[in-house]
């Protein structure tokens, strides 16, 4: 199938790695300017440019070079992407709002990576993503307000609580066939918001203050100074968010490229046949759901600390739907697709007021179009390769 080795894949005479690095720099510069763009016209122009670039470059063989670089130079490329992201954060330096947007995107990305393990790999749709995100955020609120739990541990606690509640929901129904996970998570999503609204200890409809992230004596709500410039305090959160998203990406990618990933795929595609080959279907589902929910909860805890004030309205059923839409749009089981879709779903509505008002309607239409015309999503998942570029001989 792949007769060309990676070093043969060239684009305009350049080796794959060079092309890959150029593309990363180009995307980083574009992203930086896009986050800063203010007029709607400029935003629309840039969106059109990105769409055109995406379509035409795929046809000129650039895409082949990109994937060759990702396969053949996985480590260098990953480091380059992370460095580019950190550079963009520092370039944005003093811009509060773009940094907030970027960090929110990174946290939603983390959530969507988690949902991808549940939905994309295992076939269990989770319609309570925003609720479990909220479980993380409320855990952070309660723990920062009471007692002296180290905030890094609070992130962990958010993940653990989200996973525990997820287990309580899913374990009783996981043996029954059908769309049980959809049903129980919808029910939970609706109940969770009502529960918060009537619960005075958790602030009722008004919500709760959340204390800041602090590590090693550093308060994330104070402004860092870099090269003599005082930066937005969001730089702290953006850096931590980038680290979290990168970690989540790495974990989910390793999971997918392993016997566990194979097990989850098998369970999604044919439960009965799986059981006939000794797979423990219940274990696989519980593991996938827990794994995904940990990521969702950790991201939620950090989100709460960042925005410092949370209310039930931020964790509604519609937000859960948006999170599922990210997975569908990006491509079931596709991590890069999920990352791209998270960017589109979170940033576009913030940039374009027209979209903001109709975003739920718009994304519903987009999801339907994707399901009809490109069911594998924006960046379709590839056949599993357990290690980058691994083809044993």
């Amino acid at each position, binding site marked *: *199938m792949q007769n060309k080795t990676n070093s043969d894949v060239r684009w305009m005479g350049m080796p794959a790695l060079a092309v890959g690095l150029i593309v990363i720099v180009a995307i980083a510069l574009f992203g930086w300017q896009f986050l800063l763009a203010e007029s709607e016209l400029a935003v629309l122009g840039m969106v059109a440019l990105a769409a055109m670039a995406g379509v035409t470059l795929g046809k000129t063989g650039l895409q082949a070079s990109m994937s060759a670089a990702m396969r053949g130079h996985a480590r260098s490329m990953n480091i380059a992407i992370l460095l580019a992201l950190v550079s963009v954060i520092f370039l944005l330096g003093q811009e509060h709002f773009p940094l907030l947007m970027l960090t929110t995107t990174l946290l939603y990305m983390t959530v969507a990576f988690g949902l991808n393990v549940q939905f994309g790999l295992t076939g269990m749709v989770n319609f309570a993503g925003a609720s479990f995100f909220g479980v993380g955020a409320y855990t952070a609120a309660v723990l920062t307000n009471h007692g002296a739990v180290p905030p890094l541990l609070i992130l962990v606690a958010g993940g653990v609580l989200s996973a525990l509640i997820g287990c309580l929901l899913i374990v009783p129904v996981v043996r029954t066939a059908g769309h049980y996970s959809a049903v129980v998570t919808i029910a939970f999503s609706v109940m969770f918001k009502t529960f918060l609204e009537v619960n005075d200890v958790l602030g009722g409809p008004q919500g709760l203050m959340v204390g800041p992230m602090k590590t090693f004596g550093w308060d994330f709500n104070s402004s860092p100074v870099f090269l003599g410039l005082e930066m937005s305090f969001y730089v702290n959160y953006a850096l931590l968010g980038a680290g979290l998203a990168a970690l989540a990406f790495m*974990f989910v990618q*390793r*999971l997918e490229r*392993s*016997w*566990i990933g*194979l*097990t989850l*795929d*098998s369970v999604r*595609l*044919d439960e*009965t*046949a*799986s*059981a*006939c*080959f*000794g*797979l*423990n279907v219940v274990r696989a589902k519980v*593991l996938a759901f827990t794994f995904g929910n940990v990521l969702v909860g950790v991201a939620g805890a950090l989100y709460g600390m960042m925005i410092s004030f949370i209310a039930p309205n931020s964790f509604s059923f519609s937000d859960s739907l948006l999170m599922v839409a990210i997975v569908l749009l990006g491509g079931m089981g596709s991590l890069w697709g999920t990352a791209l879709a998270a960017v589109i779903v979170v940033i576009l509505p913030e940039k374009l007021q027209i979209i903001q008002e109709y975003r739920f309607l718009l994304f519903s239409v987009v999801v339907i179009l994707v399901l009809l015309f490109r069911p594998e999503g924006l960046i379709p998942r590839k*056949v*599993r*390769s*357990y*290690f980058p570029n*691994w*083809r*044993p001989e």
Partner: protein
Amino acid sequence: MTDVLLEFKDLGKNFGGVRALDGFDMQVKRGEIIGLIGPNGSGKTTSFNLMTGIYAPSQGEVHFDGADITGMSARKVYEAGIARTFQRSRLCLPLSIYDNIMIGNHARLNTGLWFNLFQRRALREQIEEFYTQARDLVAGFSTDLADRMFEPVGSLPMIERRRIEICRALISEPKLLLLDEPSAGMTHDETAQMMDDILAVRERMGDLSIIIIEHEMGVIERLCDQCVVLSYGRKICEGSYAHIAADSEVQSAYLGMD
């Protein structure tokens, strides 16, 4: 150790009012190939499903390799050493040939979370070791197929899919292999190839027992040591192919259906 690997005693299954299988007694010896035949809806697939834990029997017992496996879960049955293919091929079409075969190898895969996430070097050794085994197994059927281990199964023609399904069942080195209409949807030539494949498997794995459900009488005649005929959920005849072919009840069961 007795000669008998598998034994049904008075096995029966009702689906609501439908009596799919009724008082079925059968024995399979080690190394034997048994042909299970009968008109459509006579209970052949049901007997496989009862054996492999997909359904629990309504009556009777299944004994395998000296143990009572009646009503055991599909997982336990696989661990006891029974592997199968399905009448309607049930491969994971988007997954590669290698992945599909590894699903059959599940008992030997280390699926610990820590191992898979953090002991990548050890994982890699396991993946490469099993790759060699899977490739050799596939090469026994088709060397061309063995060169395409990382292609999605969905892109392959029916005969190749059947072969992969058989490999998926064989990789775990079962004691008993159940084949449910392996020639379904195949051309005449493909069916002939498939029979060669099965005989080659038997050559390589001497004491493997096989039960094969087939409508092609040519296949039954060529492959099977013993035949069992079902009609309306009951066993109406058993013995050598010549014996059952000459049996008047068998003839009328088939003529009655056609």
